[in-house]
């Protein structure tokens, strides 16, 4: 791969990643207003006022100037004011919980971080995949994130920023691919020995290809039952991609609900809470 192409964060393939890249570049520009003078002044002063240069001015007692000090309290302050405004608006615009502003309804993908692989559940398509994510180009994707493992974070740099996946929690991340391609996805929050093997390919394909892919899995894969899930959830490393028919439409909620039990742990039986709906549990999401 060419060196510049490997700088994936500078080659966004989604609108969120694109906005985040331009936000970074704007911020860097603003900071350079202070940083460039610092770099120029420090090397210029160091050279000009070196001890050997006796022709330069020497004012050993000069230690205070209200005007000068005001300038360097004021200039950074003003830049920070501008940055603060940029931060306030961009943080709201890029809030991972915020649905992407479009008339196309989002595709929901429920994400369960496991030791040490990702389970992606497509409730509307009735399918699930492990360490393999396919999404249609041009349709927003609403990720619902939880974990049945230590904390992880889902990160697909070319589509946008990361969000954490935590046991018993239900987090959100809204992304959209604007161009077809295969991108790298990974966990960005260290979760134990098999953490490095949590990379997975993200295939952004056309809507028709996506539908065909989903239909193919729905017709020919093994069912993901609670028993299959319990086996899958056991720690394993460098797990290859796998595909399932979603046998239990409430799997995501049940995985999360294990941790709502009084003696909750992953060893208790999730099936004890069938059909529990998220909305019935206020305060579960942050």
């Amino acid at each position: 791969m060419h060196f510049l192409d490997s700088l994936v964060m500078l080659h966004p393939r989604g609108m969120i990643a694109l906005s985040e890249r331009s936000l970074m570049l704007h911020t860097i520009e603003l900071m350079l207003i202070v940083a460039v003078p610092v770099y120029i002044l420090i090397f210029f002063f160091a050279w000009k006022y070196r001890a050997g240069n006796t022709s330069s001015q020497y004012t050993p007692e000069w230690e205070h100037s209200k005007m000068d000090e005001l300038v360097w309290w004021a200039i950074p302050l003003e830049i920070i004011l501008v940055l603060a405004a940029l931060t306030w608006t961009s943080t709201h615009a890029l809030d991972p919980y915020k649905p992407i502003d479009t008339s196309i309804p989002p595709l929901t993908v429920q994400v369960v971080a496991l030791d040490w692989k990702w389970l992606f559940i497509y409730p509307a398509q009735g399918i699930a995949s492990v360490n393999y994510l396919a999404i249609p180009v041009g349709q927003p994707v609403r990720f619902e994130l939880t974990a049945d493992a230590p904390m992880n974070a889902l990160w697909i740099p070319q589509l946008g920023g990361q969000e954490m996946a935590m046991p018993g929690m239900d987090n959100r991340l809204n992304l959209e691919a604007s161009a077809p391609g295969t991108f790298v996805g990974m966990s960005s929050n260290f979760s134990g020995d098999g953490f490095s093997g949590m990379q997975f390919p993200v295939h952004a394909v056309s809507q028709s290809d996506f539908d065909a892919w989903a239909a193919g899995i729905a017709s020919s894969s093994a069912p993901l039952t609670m028993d299959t899930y319990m086996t899958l959830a056991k720690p394993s490393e460098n797990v290859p991609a796998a595909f399932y028919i979603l046998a239990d439409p409430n799997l995501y909620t049940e995985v999360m609900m294990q941790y709502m039990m009084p003696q909750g742990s992953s060893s208790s039986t999730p099936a004890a809470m069938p059909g529990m709906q998220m909305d019935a549990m206020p305060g579960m999401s942050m």
Partner: protein
Amino acid sequence: MFGELTFAAFNQGPIVLGVQIFIVFGAAAVLSLITYLRRWQWLWKEWLTSLDAKKIGIMYLVVAVVMLLRGFSDAVMLRAQQALSVGSSTGYLTANHFDQVFTAHGTIMIFFVAMPIIFGLINLVLPLQLGARDVAFPFLNSLSFWLYAAGAALIMLSLVVGEFAATGWLAYPPLSELQYSPGVGVDYWIWALQISGAGSLIAGINFVATIITKRAPGMTLMRMPIFAWTALGSMTLVVFAFPVLTATLAMLALDRYLGMHFFTAGGGGNMMMYVNLIWTWGHPEVYILALPAFGVFSEVVPVFAQKRLFGYTSMVAATISITLLSFVVWLHHFFTMGATPDVNAFFGIMTMVIAIPTGVKIFNWLFTMFRGRIIFATPMLWFLGFVSLFTMGGMAGVLMAVPGADFQLHNSLFLVAHFHTMIISGVLFGFFAAVTYWFPKIFGFTLDETWGKRAFWCWTVGFMTAFMPLYILGFMGATRRLDHYPAGLGWQPLFIVAAMGVVIIALGGLCQAIQIYVSVRDRKQRVAGPDPWNARTLEWSVPSPVPFYNFAHTPQVEGRDDFWLKKKRGAPPELPAEDIELPRNTSLGMFMAGAAFVAGFGLVWHIWWLVAFALVGFFVLLVARSFADVHEELLPAAEVARLEAAARAQPI
């Protein structure tokens, strides 16, 4: 009898076996050397039991340098693994061993290198700058040091017996809970930090009390050198932040030992509370380390620019602002956890606000250089390196303070590069500048400049070589803590460059070792005298090396840069020596810390009778201390006058 401790705990594979043999034989060699040189009595009387702040400071720095070598060895292992472990190669470390190494690297560098560097420097310099003979509580000072040493010993012991945490240096639950980390590694981590953390808290209280109560007559707060101000800011942060760390670790320990559910996944636990609490300590910690380094540079720049410090009042205001603001930014360490945009934006903006006083400090240093006569001695070079790198790292920090940008950069190697820039250029370069600057004051002779400059260039070039690739790797989507990655991502060349940077840094360390050897060898020709740099603050008014009583006569301070003013006015009149009360040596701090160490070891391995025995011992020693009536002895004025005359006549 021995809890969960079995012979299996000693068997950790061939790499660790090598380290175990090295540690055991190394320790035996050091002990034999001391015996051969018949230095035990000297070591005991002059150092181990001493309550002299200067000697405690040196002991802090010696242990810090030993731990720096350990932490640096860890860094070498990490860099080697990441340069090799790509595609079909899995490198030479197992995933779990790699995880232990990066956890140990972070824990050791922050708690057992950076912290003792700060405490060591403050011990050496602060009382002298204030015109004081000692800290407010000399015995607690010794106890602080020994508690730190006990924590360091416990963490080193985890290499020989058992294992260390494989959780990352802040041990986020639920990964650090029993469910996911059933071994003793996290327990070693908890008790090593609890013991040394108690020492840090005591030291923080001690130094705040010292600044409040021990200033010489006339040394008003606004006449204090900036280093003393930054020490006040830093130690105030210690006093407020370390109890949070202690409580957080205690709750994690209760989860692990008594099956409680503060931070567990499920059972009502809330792991996000842990993340909030640990960073409520963790962010102030950054400034605990950085502020005194800013103080060092505020001493170094005026001396080597041969000009008064520009904007003293601004510097004080900036120091106080940083101290206060550092408590309202902690959430920027986890913007990606799912807080609302209002919360994220608030903490992002507060983080940027800290850049203002920091920027003001940089401009004030620059304008101290303006119209000066700059001497490029090694401390000044460290300053220039610091400003260059710190400005770059600060920009990276402000960038990550914008939550929308942080969503992409968080937990990437960009973040790793950022905080290494801040801590290496801030804390470590500050420490190197401080050592070169104050070395003649403490030992009576100057350090070799040629080797010092070589060390500076190796460190700076090595730093750039080691960390610029990490900034770039962040933009390539490389996350931290990977023991292995696929070949097709184009990362390996940069990891190899980064590994070479570590080699250049190691050469810098070698230059420093040679620098010390050469300087000690030529010490007769390098005699410094009391004021080798034509400096400005009180510590330079006393002989070098500083007599154990610091000041024969308590100085009367008449202004900022008091010593400078008096030098300009002409030779100050010789003041008569005074009767001086000095704290008596005591080994109690060492034994109390020893008891804490034994208790920590018992807790790690669940050897309950040993824990009980050690805690009773600790309590008995504490009570014994309260029964000892005489803690000081008097040095009569005549004796002080004799010693002072001798010190001024014979610098070495």
